């Protein structure tokens, strides 16, 4: 067993061996006075899975993460890592690696001391400690930084050190609380890719919290969208984006126009090519800007919705162009196009009519659950 421990992470870094744990959360409830932070949350995270908790602030995602780490104390429910119940177990006995939003690196210790700290607490000898910290620092692209002070590091470097410290002691699972939110966009995108690669090499179970839907789509094996203390949908990124389960999810992930399809005016929306589809009077049609085609007046093919609109504005944004238009029934609709020369030439001008086509595979119908969208944590 000790032999396995000492070779574990380095072995994993080298061979991608899978030693990860399954996390089973059942019926977790946490109330702060009248505010329900977690309302009967159940969730299973597979061994080696990268699961992201996504939601607006006050949705319960951070409370859920803090409950896993042991810094929040749920009122009832169960959390199991593998077959070990960890509810009520003190944080330091949970064997969970955590990366904080602020990184929480100890300013009075060097980079090396920070990374070796969890090993020191576990009674690992000095030579072994230094050896393992060195290897983990290399794994996060920070070789040779052992003797640097924390205040000498840039934001991206601190983030890497925080990750190194969270993985060096081979925790059963790794938790990350918006670890990239303090970085600028370009660095954030670079580190997203790095994290994804590191996850593949480690094969650990990672539970990640973010409010950035693009980050969630990029990193995750699965995404759990939370709202009002509940998980409203769990799905793979592509499925989540293409087939949101509710208006809340459709609205939160990506931009979409939600069109009450049965009530829509036939002069604006032409459903003639869709047969009996979409007669649910409460359903909303998810219309994403990049899924729309600008087509000619006589374009008619099976499986398409057609919209008649008038162009209000064309906004050039460098890599893309946004065409803002209004349906005859009054709803605003946005079309996203690339900015190649030929595309730009063909775009309609402001004030001119525009016919739009949307294939049924590029949309879905959702129920309107937004009426009761919770106010933010009071």
């Amino acid at each position, binding site marked *: 067993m000790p032999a396995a421990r000492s070779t574990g992470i380095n072995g994993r870094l080298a061979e991608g061996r899978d030693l990860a744990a399954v996390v089973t959360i059942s019926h977790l409830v946490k109330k702060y006075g009248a505010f329900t932070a977690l309302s009967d949350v159940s969730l299973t995270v597979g061994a080696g899975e990268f699961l992201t908790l996504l939601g607006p602030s006050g949705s319960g995602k951070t409370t859920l993460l803090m409950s896993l780490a042991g810094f929040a104390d749920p009122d009832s429910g169960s959390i199991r890592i593998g077959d070990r119940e960890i509810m009520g177990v*003190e944080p*330091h006995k*949970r*064997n969970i690696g*955590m990366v904080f939003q602020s990184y*929480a690196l*100890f300013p009075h210790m060097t980079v090396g001391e920070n990374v070796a*700290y969890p090993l020191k607490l576990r009674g690992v000898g000095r030579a072994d400690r230094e050896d393992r910290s060195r290897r983990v620092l290399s794994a996060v692209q920070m070789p040779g930084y052992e003797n640097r002070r924390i205040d000498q590091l840039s934001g991206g470097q601190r983030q890497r050190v925080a990750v190194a410290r*969270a993985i060096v002691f081979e925790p059963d699972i790794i938790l990350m609380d918006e670890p990239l939110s303090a970085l600028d966009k370009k660095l954030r995108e670079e580190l997203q890719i790095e994290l994804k690669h590191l996850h593949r090499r480690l094969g650990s179970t990672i539970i990640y919290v973010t409010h950035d839907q693009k980050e969630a789509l990029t990193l995750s094996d699965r995404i759990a969208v939370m709202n009002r203390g509940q998980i409203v949908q769990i799905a793979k990124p592509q499925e989540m984006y293409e087939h949101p389960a509710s208006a809340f999810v459709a609205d939160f992930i990506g931009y979409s126009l939600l069109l009450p399809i049965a009530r829509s005016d036939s002069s604006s929306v032409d459903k003639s090519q869709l047969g009996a589809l979409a007669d649910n009077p409460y359903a909303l049609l998810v219309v994403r800007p990049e899924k729309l085609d600008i087509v000619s007046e006589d374009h008619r093919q099976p499986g398409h919705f057609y919209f008649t609109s008038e162009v209000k504005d064309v906004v050039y944004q460098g890599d893309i162009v946004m065409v803002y238009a209004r349906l005859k029934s009054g709803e605003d609709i946005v079309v996203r196009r690339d900015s190649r020369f030929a595309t730009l030439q063909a775009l309609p001008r402001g004030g001119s009519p525009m016919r739009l086509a949307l294939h049924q595979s590029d949309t879905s119908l959702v129920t309107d659950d937004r009426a009761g969208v919770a106010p933010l944590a009071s």
Partner: protein
Amino acid sequence: MAIAGKSHGVRIWPLAAPGIALVSFVVLPFLWLGGLSFIAGGEISLANYTRMIENSSYQAIILRTLQLSAIVTLVVIVIGYPTAYYINTRSRIAATFLLGCVAIPFWTSLLVRTYAWMVILQRNGIVNGWLQDLGLIERPLRLSNSFLGTSVGMIHIMLPFFIFPLYSAMKQIDMDLVRAARGLGASRTNAFWQIFVPLSGPGLFAGSLLTFVLCLGFYVTPQLLGGGNVTVISMKIQENITNYSDWGAASALGVVLLVIVGVLLFGASRLGARLGAQ
């Protein structure tokens, strides 16, 4: 150019007021007293300083002052650190209330507090009364007019000076660091000693230094609670002036006190810089 310069000069001139005040009320009196310390019997001499070296009672007084200040500072740390820590863990409302409790004696006159301690600690005072009623002692303890009484009074007076800077330093500590340590495997005790205490170091250092330096110059409390049994530098200075009208001797003691404080502050800033650089 000349006109512009002149109008500028007129506007800027009031800004020199603090400088002038500093020179007239601090620098000049200091130089005056410093000069006086080198005058003995109407002539320029080092007699005021040589006396301090030759006369062992002066050394005893200086040592006693340092000893009193050190003991008071140590006890203030032992009582003040847990107090500041406790206040820091409370909610904002509770913390404000508790800081108020610390501050109330701070706003009460030093003289009033010292007299209060005299009443409490005297031969027939509350403490002796209780101890006798409980049968712990037969005869009253000598609590006032002693080193012990002086220490108690000074500790009480110095606590706010220590707690406030320490509390504000603790307030700055990112509690995520302590949480991070816990998550990485540190027990409550380990996280406290390995993370919280080192991070509160600057505040602890500043508070202790402030306490120690203020103690060195204490006069009222040792005078009243010491009952003539505790002689500190400030009392000797007063004695030299009021009893002997020997301004030279008094000034020399003042200079010695100033040098001790100066050396301490210099050493502390060096130490602080080294700790900060680590």
